[in-house]
């Protein structure tokens, strides 16, 4: 391969040396710009953009070392090798040349063979540098595109909801942090903060199926357990063994007024009780998503009561690894101290982010952690949330006159949630999709009553206090485990009526029933029990119980919207 023709800047105040170098280089086929001092050298460097600089160290006006410094700044990211022409033999002088950004020396008298070899070497270095830079720019452009896709996926959710505040590392996609939030048609909000192992694009790849499953399933009313099981299965199948996702997932269950939390592998988050400034830690009690075989995946969530002024805080490990200029890390303890040392009413989210900035003494752009705060919606009034329409979804072909009967027996009651499946069927009815939130609420309420009160015989009055509340969920889990010879039978019927339809739902459980005529009194304390019946009555045209109280019929009528 022939030598490429280079543009070479020669700076030397000795006229004869300059003449020799200029002639040598021209004979080698290069273009030469020859100048006699450092000032002129910097000027010509700027306007001629040479490929290589050969420069004497001692020159009038501006010496070679100062000139080299200015050239380095002008060159910015481009590599323009600077070779000092010198007969310096003092080690300190040579070191100063290197410090100033010199790449090599050529001593006088010039040896044409060595000169040619050096030019060749630096020309190759410069080509490599340009190539590396081109590839890096290409990579950055690709990462930029990937980030665009990722942001669009993340933004299809409810991250902008008023009850969520978050800070996601600007490099989140490349350090594997992911935050997803979505609302079920019935109003429950689900949030996952995840941190994939590893860095770069391999860590980001798992985010795609995870987000797809999450948004798809939550929109179809699937709850936390089903969503996490599916994500775990997919990640286990798709990702290499070394890549998995540490995550904490939260479901704000407005119907039961509790917060359901599954934690696997992230640093312990916490629930902050604003009124008492107390905290309930969220210990990680599961293996991360994508580690266990689907059969071995465990779902043992933590369930806490939902109070209007409580908030869940989750974060990635980047937060405790934030370090100050002395290299000391912020650490878990400092973070916990922020909570315990704070007056209540302090805005914890702002307090945390500000404290981290103060600690690291860095600007906003260096935040390299993810933090999320989830609060209950201010008005967790169910019918109102439920009536939020999901009209944007495309209406599939409607099926408007049918009935189905569906019976779940003991083994099915233990493991499955029939609500998403039924929702899917029911929403086929023309115009009913617009009322998806209400239908979800009605179905959940009916099924939960049938299972928890009917089949398992649990009294909602147990939830009167915090201890009873925990006890209730413990008994529920134990009861399900021991279940035999039980069933819940669901009959759904869709009948077209003028400009709309009628949905008739009948649910019968295998339990002994209850005295529905005397069930009104607990409505006085709707925060804990008795809300169910009131809620159903507010949503349905008809709510009727049948003796002995183990069967209920509700009717819901809707009109098709014209347009």
């Amino acid at each position: 391969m022939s030598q490429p023709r280079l543009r070479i800047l020669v700076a030397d105040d000795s006229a004869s040396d300059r003449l020799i170098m200029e002639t040598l280089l021209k004979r080698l086929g290069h273009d030469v710009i020859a100048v006699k001092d450092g000032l002129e050298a910097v000027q010509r460097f700027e306007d001629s953009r040479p490929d290589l600089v050969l420069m004497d160290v001692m020159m009038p006006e501006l010496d070679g070392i100062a000139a080299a410094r200015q050239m380095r700044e002008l060159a910015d990211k481009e590599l323009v090798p600077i070779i000092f022409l010198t007969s310096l033999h003092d080690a300190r002088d040579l070191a100063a040349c290197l410090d100033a950004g010199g790449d090599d020396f050529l001593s006088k008298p010039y040896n044409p063979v060595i000169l040619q070899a050096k030019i060749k070497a630096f020309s190759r270095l410069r080509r490599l540098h340009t190539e590396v830079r081109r590839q890096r720019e290409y990579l950055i452009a690709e990462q930029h595109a990937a980030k665009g896709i990722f942001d669009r996926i993340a933004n299809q959710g409810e991250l902008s909801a008023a009850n969520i505040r978050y800070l996601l590392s600007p490099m989140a996609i490349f350090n594997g942090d992911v935050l997803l939030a979505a609302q079920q048609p019935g109003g429950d909000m689900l949030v996952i903060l995840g941190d994939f192992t590893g860095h770069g694009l391999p860590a980001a790849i798992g985010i795609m199926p995870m987000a797809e499953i999450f948004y798809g399933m939550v929109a179809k009313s699937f709850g936390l357990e089903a969503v996490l099981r599916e994500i775990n299965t997919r990640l286990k199948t798709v990702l290499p063994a070394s890549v998995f996702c540490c995550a904490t997932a939260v479901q704000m269950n407005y119907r039961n007024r509790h917060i359901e939390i599954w934690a696997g592998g992230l640093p312990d988050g916490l629930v902050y009780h604003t009124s008492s400034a107390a905290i309930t830690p969220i210990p990680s009690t599961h293996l991360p998503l994508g580690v266990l075989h689907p059969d071995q995946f465990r779902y043992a969530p933590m369930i806490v009561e939902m109070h209007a002024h409580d908030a869940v805080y989750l974060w990635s490990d980047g937060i405790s690894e934030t370090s100050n200029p002395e290299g000391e890390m912020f650490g878990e303890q400092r973070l916990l101290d922020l909570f315990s040392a704070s007056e209540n009413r302090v805005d914890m989210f702002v307090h945390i982010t500000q404290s981290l900035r103060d600690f690291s003494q860095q600007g906003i752009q260096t935040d390299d952690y993810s933090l999320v705060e989830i609060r209950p919606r201010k008005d967790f009034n169910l019918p109102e949330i439920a009536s939020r329409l999901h009209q944007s979804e495309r209406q599939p072909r409607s099926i408007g006159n049918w009935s189905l009967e569906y019976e779940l027996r003991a083994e099915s009651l233990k493991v499955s949630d029939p609500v998403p499946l039924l929702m899917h069927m029911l929403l086929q009815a023309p115009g009913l999709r617009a009322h998806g939130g209400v239908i979800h609420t009605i179905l959940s309420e009916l099924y939960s009553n049938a299972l928890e009160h009917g089949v398992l015989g649990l009294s909602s009055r147990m939830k009167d206090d915090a201890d009873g509340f925990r006890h209730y969920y413990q008994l529920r889990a134990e009861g399900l485990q021991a279940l035999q010879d039980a069933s819940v039978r669901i009959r759904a019927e869709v009948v077209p009526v003028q400009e709309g339809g009628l949905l008739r739902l009948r649910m019968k459980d295998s339990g002994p029933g209850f005295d529905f005529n005397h069930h009104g009194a607990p409505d006085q304390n709707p925060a804990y029990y008795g809300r169910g019946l009131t809620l159903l009555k507010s949503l349905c045209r008809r709510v009727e119980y049948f003796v002995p109280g183990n069967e209920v019929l509700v009717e819901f009528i809707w009109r098709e919207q014209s347009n």
Partner: protein
Amino acid sequence: MAELYLDVVLLEELRDILEDEFPSLISTYIQDSGVRVDDLRQAMTRGDTEAARKAAHNLKGSSANLGLVYLADLCRIVEDAARAGQLAGQEAYMLLIQQEQQHAVVLLRDRL
């Protein structure tokens, strides 16, 4: 004898490479080195070590490039002394540099 003062092989290589430019190189050096010697002498008279160092350094480099090894060595001695801040006692070398520069002019003209 001339080899002690002038690296003839190096100079002949230069002639081969520079071709037509060779005479111009010789005359450039003759003119330039005369100026440097004057600079050096004046700097030493003033006791200006920095100026002396620069002039000696410059003359050393350009002389070496033309194969004038003896003159380059003399310049290096004075440059080192100037760097150490000890110009006093260097007058003898200054005299030698002056003589040797004139000698170099003769040697180079012979080669044209």
